[in-house]
């Protein structure tokens, strides 16, 4: 897509700084958007905030950017308290969800705008703008206006513009959500590559779990103004801290079971629990589709684990199979090469890999993203 970036180009921004958010609260009338958010982003780290609409992820980013004021709490960047500092003095680069290039300026002028405000000499800012455009692979478009380039290119220019001022922190507010799937994946990888090369501390906000898991060093899953879990993508996915995280990140089967002695029995199968302290009694086990395996025909175990295939969704290398167990439907994610023998209507027997699972009460539902 773009030419590799040289070291000289990759070092234009300062080394990353530590960002700390302590007890951030923000209310809009009766609605509490942020309810005491604590977050530390290490120097050069990329943290993605993930969550459904209205969970407070964008509010967190806007408070950090200075575009809104916190009701309570403290924001420090590189040890400096910037809680009451206006946005124009925070020295942060931001890429927005909506296309934000200034329509009356060329691509080059857009990228140089921040430097112009800092009274950088014309030659210097032109050179820097071209360097930044080279970084995002858009030097050919330098003299075009925003309406003359594509949406993906506009977001890349916005990224170049944000990086041109050598910001202390890079803020990305769902920058890919307006793009089509292919451009989105390309730009996502490009953002990550540039972020690693530049070494800038970055906060990335998204409602797309795949995006967050693919790009971030750590993912923070938010719900109702609080961070439910913060950790590396693999941990958030494979060891979710709460039922909400388990259900929001990735697909989850909800299977009725019985907890007894730190284990849960689901349809005759016993599975270990993530949280051993769950009290005995009926519960809903949250099982990932990839933990479910299928075998053609009804095996000896049969009974509660026997069902029929409702449908197969082709996802590329893997396929998702819906199985009707009579009283519930279970999803299984299998390599596509294995689903050829599972025609719709065919009888199958389920098995569940004995990975530790979370359990939830019926009321712990996940809102739509």
């Amino acid at each position: 897509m773009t030419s590799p970036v040289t070291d000289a180009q990759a070092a234009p921004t300062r080394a990353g700084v530590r960002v700390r958010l302590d007890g951030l609260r923000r209310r809009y009338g009766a609605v509490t958007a942020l309810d005491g958010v604590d977050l530390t982003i290490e120097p050069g780290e990329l943290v993605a905030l993930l969550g459904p609409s209205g969970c407070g992820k964008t509010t967190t980013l806007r408070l950090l950017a200075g575009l809104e004021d916190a009701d309570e709490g403290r924001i420090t960047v590189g040890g400096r308290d910037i809680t009451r500092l206006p946005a124009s003095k925070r020295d942060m680069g931001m890429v927005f969800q909506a296309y934000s290039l200034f329509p009356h300026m060329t691509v080059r002028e857009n990228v140089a705008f921040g430097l112009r405000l800092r009274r950088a000499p014309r030659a210097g800012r032109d050179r820097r703008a071209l360097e930044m455009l080279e970084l995002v692979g858009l030097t050919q478009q330098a003299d075009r206006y925003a309406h003359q380039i594509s949406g993906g290119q506009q977001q890349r220019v916005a990224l170049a513009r944000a990086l041109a001022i050598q910001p202390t922190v890079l803020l990305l507010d769902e920058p890919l959500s307006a793009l089509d799937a292919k451009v989105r994946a390309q730009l996502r990888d490009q953002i990550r590559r540039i972020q690693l090369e530049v070494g800038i501390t970055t906060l990335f906000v998204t409602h797309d779990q795949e995006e967050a898991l693919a790009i971030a060093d750590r993912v923070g899953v938010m719900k109702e103004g609080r961070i439910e879990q913060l950790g590396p993508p693999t941990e958030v996915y494979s060891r979710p801290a709460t039922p909400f995280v388990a259900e929001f990140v990735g697909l989850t089967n909800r299977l009725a079971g019985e907890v007894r002695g730190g284990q849960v029995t689901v349809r005759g199968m016993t599975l270990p629990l993530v949280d051993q302290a769950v009290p005995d009694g009926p519960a809903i086990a949250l099982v990932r589709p990839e933990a479910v395996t299928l075998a053609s025909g009804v095996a000896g175990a049969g009974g509660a684990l026997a069902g029929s295939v409702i449908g197969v969704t082709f996802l590329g290398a893997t396929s998702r199979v819906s199985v009707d167990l009579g009283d519930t439907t279970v999803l299984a994610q299998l390599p596509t090469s294995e689903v050829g023998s599972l025609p719709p209507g065919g009888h199958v027997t389920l098995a569940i890999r004995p990975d530790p699972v979370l359990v939830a009460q019926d009321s712990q539902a996940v809102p739509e993203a």
Partner: protein
Amino acid sequence: MASVAPLAAIAAQSGTAPDTRRGMRGAKRYRLNAFRYLIFCVFGLFFLVPLLAMARFSVEGTRPGQFSLSAWTQIPSYPGLLSAIEITLELALLTCAVILLLVVPTLIWIQLRVRWISRAVEFLCLLPLTIPAIVLVVGLAPIYNYIRHYNLSALQLFWVYGILALPYSSRALAAGLGAVDLKTLSEAARSLGASWLTVIWRIVVPNMWQALLNAMLLTTALVLGEFTVAVTLLYTNLQTALYYISRDTNNAGVLFSTSTGALVFAFMLLMILSYVGRRRRRRRG
């Protein structure tokens, strides 16, 4: 599955299909253009014929068939006329400045910070349309009587003209602001280090040039043609001066030359404003 031939291949097979379609489209465009020119000519005549009649009357000599420019050359000799023109132009400039300085930041502030009052402000801006000028004058008379003690010139009318121009200019400006994503652009500029003043001057204003010119055009047109308020508050502007000339002179030629001059002047001014706007648009592609 049956294969679907590409459109180009079908066109190549059918030979004349694209040409026919192009021909039909061309004929339609031709008819549309002809209609446009017809409308333009009809309206052009509608406005131009009275103007030409006035111009002809203003150069009519004392005898039929004779032409003279004496009515035009006498214009400067009428006491107060040139100063009325001057004051009207100054009033137009001042009113435009007041409108731009007051309304633009206010509308930006409303759109960015207090959107919930936008309806109320829109209602307030439209109020002058519903209040007859004479009623407005009755309300403003005590204030202007007070001002008069300080011997201030007719330039004081800019306050009331600002109010009268508010419904038109605010609509034009609101339309211009509505056409850009003001929130995102201003936040992007602020995150890059721009102060609010810089945001307005370097980001918002360049993106609403057309709306600003439209607002100035409407305000200028209103000020150039305003008569009721000025005459009732006993100030002299271009329109009142023309009225006094028509009342005091028995030379109708002068009346028509001044009226034609004023109209042509206003027309030229509006054309210039409109031309500036078009040139900026074209330059940006």
